[in-house]
């Protein structure tokens, strides 16, 4: 754990008690995430990738092991508003305008009116939704709604962004576009991003570090530091490096699958 470590997990385990007996959602997971990294978690359902992200966000409590976020416990980090969280569904409040939805965290955190207005304007530009402030969610497409929900997570000064399959429900073309935008946004804001996905191309395209996970019990089977350059146009996906990296991720996923 270096000085640059933002999130650190040591021998993390989480067992859910269900009616069918205990389920090992996570077992002995250790990982360090450094400042400014874009880390993807990829794996089949049940591998604990979402659970891992939720533990970092203090939405689940681990049953064993230790996690720190910004050097403190996830609970403290949450109360310090250390991270923004983007869920699978945009989850915008239908009774609030887009601007009103982005204001929600700011209202709760006690920003004054002028600061709220300025930040709303700023993040809407960041996600290319300027001019949509007064629209209601139902007036926006699914992709635009998800962008608004990202803007909502960016509105306050958290330097960590945790994203749980944010583009999972969107079609391929929209997803490509949002991936490009997300990379640009990450470069502009210097945030540390944790990104859960089940798409290999998405993980390879976005990440500086790919964490491959496998199920029953949920564990990390491979951690790959991406050799791809920081500058990534969409057609990087046709390069040899990209294809090789995808191959390695796929092998990692398969190995985890066969080990069952």
């Amino acid at each position: 754990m270096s000085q640059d470590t933002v999130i650190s997990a040591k021998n993390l385990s989480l067992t859910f008690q269900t009616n069918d007996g205990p389920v090992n959602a996570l077992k002995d997971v250790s990982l360090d995430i450094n400042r400014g990294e874009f880390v993807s978690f990829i794996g089949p359902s049940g591998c604990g990738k979402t659970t891992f992200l939720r533990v970092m966000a203090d939405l689940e409590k681990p049953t064993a092991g230790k996690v720190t976020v910004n050097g403190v416990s996830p609970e403290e980090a949450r109360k310090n508003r250390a991270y923004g969280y983007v869920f699978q569904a945009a989850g915008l409040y239908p009774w609030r305008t887009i601007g009103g939805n982005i204001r929600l965290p700011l209202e709760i955190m006690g920003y004054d009116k002028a600061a709220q207005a300025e930040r709303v304007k700023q993040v809407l530009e960041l996600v290319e939704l300027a001019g949509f402030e007064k629209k209601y969610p139902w007036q926006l497409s699914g992709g635009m709604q998800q962008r608004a929900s990202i803007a909502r997570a960016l509105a306050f000064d958290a330097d960590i962004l945790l994203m749980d399959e944010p583009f999972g429900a969107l079609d391929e073309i929209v997803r490509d576009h949002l991936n490009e935008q997300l990379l640009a946004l990450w470069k502009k804001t210097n945030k540390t991003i944790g990104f859960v996905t089940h798409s290999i191309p998405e993980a390879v395209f976005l990440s500086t570090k790919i964490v491959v996970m496998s199920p029953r019990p949920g564990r990390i089977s491979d951690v790959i530091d991406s050799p791809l350059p920081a500058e990534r146009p969409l057609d990087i996906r046709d390069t040899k490096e990209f294809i090789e990296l995808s191959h390695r991720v796929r092998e990692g996923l398969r190995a985890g699958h066969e080990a069952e």
Partner: protein
Amino acid sequence: MRRNIGPILVVVLAIIAIWYAGSFAMNRAWTMDQAARAGTEPSFSEVFRDTMNQDRAVLPAPHQVAAELYDGIIDKKVTSKRSLVYHGYITFQATMAGFALGIVGGVALAVIIVLSRAMDLTLMPWAIISQTIPVVALAPMIVVLSNALGADSLMVPKAIIAGYLSFFPVLVSMVAGLRSPDAMQLDLLRTYGATKGQVFWKLRLPASMPYFFASLKIAVAASLVGAIVGELPTGAIAGLGARMLIGSQFGEPMIMWSALFAAALLAALLIWVVTWVERLAGRLMGVQA
């Protein structure tokens, strides 16, 4: 809205036709009786005409009720003791007071139940039991009690009875509405470090509004029923319920039927107003037009 008028009209016409047939069938016995006593042999058209215009018909014909209704609402001065507007207004007042009581009571109980698990377990069964007691049995007791406590008019007990009926739909809907936010929306606020109060004001309460307005339509109708029932067994002399009772006790079916229809008109009016308020609130809350 316009599209619905055709089918509605067909149903209304069918009801009126059945009603006329019923009037003829039920009033015929009296006509034949009279004819037999007079020793005459009336033709079919004479019988039919007579059944349509009896003063104390078993089932007055629609046009008779319509005429009486018109007379009671438009022709009579509103200060007259025979004006349906006068009686309707008295019932309306009790309905509104009970409706307000029901809203306040229902919302307050729902909030308590949602915020406290203990209250959920202890209060909810009583709220349900309260609705199984026949209001007609309860009404005289409420009158006696509120008299003993110093209420000198019937308005207070009537409002209590109306509120007693109308709080329940509000309570049930508000509990469902306040619990309607899903786990993800609650998690989102948790990531912001929101307090319990913020979760309530920013999420639970606004999320419950569609449930609230849906329940108002039921509650206002229940409140009107409560106000009328409150006028029946309590010796009231004013109000639509009192008119219905007087009509039936003194063998004046026209009074009874016109009061009944006046109550129906009042109910339609109240529900129309509630629907309009609901739409207005919906527009303010960004509901898809």
